[in-house]
């Protein structure tokens, strides 16, 4: 039964060849240093670093974390030291150790995004991920509107030749509408899902569990929602799809790829099992061996939908 053929674990995302299809998702792995005792960003397909904005941000007041059934609610609110700090300190280090770096960018306005990307365009960051879907900041996110998504994507497309990934919000009526708008705007890939917006109340204090009242849901609770949206999106667009939301173990990653993801990201799963990225990479490789797949990308779209 042992299959010793070597599996090709590389995948092409937005035209870039990655070591493997497993990433850690923005906001759950900092800038790559915090889990170093367990895994190095260089072992991943790519690291999606915590959102950076043109100016540093404080984020929301604490408490920022609450537990939910099979998941976690967060209201970080994009605390970050600013893109310049990232470019000076973290990015050179990440590149020096051999990581593929996807920079998650956020802004209040289109110009904010543009300013960030202009600075990043001068660096050796590998890809830009536009976070237009954070549930933890005031106002309607750009990612809730197709036209705004297309316009922003297009504006950024004109600034950089680096691959652009649009991070999609699940808090929308039609995920495919927004994904198609991103594609039309010139995106090279979409990543999804960001966090569905949720809330919890402490019935003893009668206060919301988060100071910001609402927050973003992640973890296994959102997995079926994410899987559905990835499936719909992969069926709608021709660009790369990076799928995640609730992935904890390799079986989840296989499901996500079968639904149509070209690569996957792990976020809150790190909190449960910090070693999950390595275990998922191993598990995918073993799955391919066991099923005689020579390349991990053969899992993508292997779903059988006729009964």
């Amino acid at each position, binding site marked *: 039964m042992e299959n010793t053929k070597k599996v090709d674990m590389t995948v092409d995302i937005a035209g870039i060849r990655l070591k493997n299809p497993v990433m850690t998702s923005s906001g759950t792995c900092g800038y790559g240093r915090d889990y170093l*005792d367990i895994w190095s960003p260089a072992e991943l397909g790519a690291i999606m670093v915590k959102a950076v904005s043109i100016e540093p941000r404080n984020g929301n007041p604490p408490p920022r974390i609450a537990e939910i059934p099979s998941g976690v609610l967060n209201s970080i609110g994009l605390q970050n030291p600013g893109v310049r700090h990232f470019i000076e300190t973290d990015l050179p280090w990440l590149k020096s150790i051999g990581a593929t770096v996807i920079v998650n960018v956020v802004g209040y306005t289109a110009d904010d995004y543009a300013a960030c990307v202009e600075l990043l365009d001068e660096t050796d960051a590998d890809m830009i991920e536009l976070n237009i879907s954070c549930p933890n900041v005031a106002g309607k996110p750009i990612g809730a509107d197709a036209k705004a998504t297309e316009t922003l994507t297009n504006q950024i497309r004109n600034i950089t030749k680096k691959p652009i990934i649009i991070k999609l919000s699940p808090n929308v009526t039609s995920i495919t509408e927004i994904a198609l708008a991103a594609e039309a705007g010139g995106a090279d890939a979409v990543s999804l899902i960001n966090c569905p917006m949720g809330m919890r109340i402490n019935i003893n204090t009668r206060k919301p569990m988060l100071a910001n009242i609402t927050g973003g849901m992640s973890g296994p609770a959102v997995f079926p929602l994410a899987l559905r949206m990835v499936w719909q999106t992969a069926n709608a667009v021709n660009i790369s799809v990076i799928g995640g939301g609730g992935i904890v173990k390799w079986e989840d990653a296989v499901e996500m790829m079968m639904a149509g993801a070209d690569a996957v990201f792990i976020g809150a799963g790190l909190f449960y099992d910090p070693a999950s990225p390595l275990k998922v990479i191993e598990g995918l490789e073993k799955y391919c061996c066991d099923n005689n797949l020579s390349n991990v990308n053969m899992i993508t779209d292997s779903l059988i939908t006729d009964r």
Partner: protein
Amino acid sequence: MLDITAKVIENRLLSEKGRIYSLTLDSPELSKDCLPGQFYEIKVGGLDSRFLLRRPFSVAFCDDKTVTIRYNVVGAGTEWMSGITPGQMLDVLGPLGRGWPVDKTKKTLLVGGSTGIFSVLGAASHLGDKSRAVLGFRSCDLVNSVEDFKAFGVPVSIITEDGSSGRKGLVTELVKEELDKNEYDTVFICGSTLMMKSVAELLKDYDVDCYVSIEERMACGVGACMGCVVKIKADNEQGWEYKRACAEGPVFNAAEVIW
């Protein structure tokens, strides 16, 4: 920081009514690098659990081969922990964070309130008779671990809110009396935010260093998620910044905390 599976060798009830347990892990690896005031993130629940988040617990004390934590049953995760039996394996991440600035040349007052006593017990185990502990509890049912402080050579005073054990009153009273002796260089405090805030307030009138250990809700426990922040004075325009309790803390210089 280690990410390991360790064997439980004891999970002993310390206080029936208070539902306080002492849990000891057989793990030379974990005990090797562990400093007082640091903490572990422990995976709770079975294979089919709905808990995504690990639970943070301060190291109470270590020896060459074992690490002991102590916990109060307050919710579903600690409820599950109370059912752990010796021999069972636990997934443990740690040691994490920055602990107490333990310095045996300094006379240190340890101030603990309810489960905050476990973090200062860690300091007690290193400081011995260079320290003294004042411990506050709601009532006598919750009093525990006093013998352990004493075994480390640390004298202990107890105060309870209802007077059912030791003196009646709030821990601040005892702290004031101790400080008025003018013997202390440093104070370590761990307890409710209210208690830490009022002790820190009091200390402004004294010439002592004061450190507090702050328990914030955590997700990653390792500094990656920005979930556990505390407002700390900073040399920037706004005069403060959010620092991570799990990475820059949980122990902070009380003078820098914005309550």
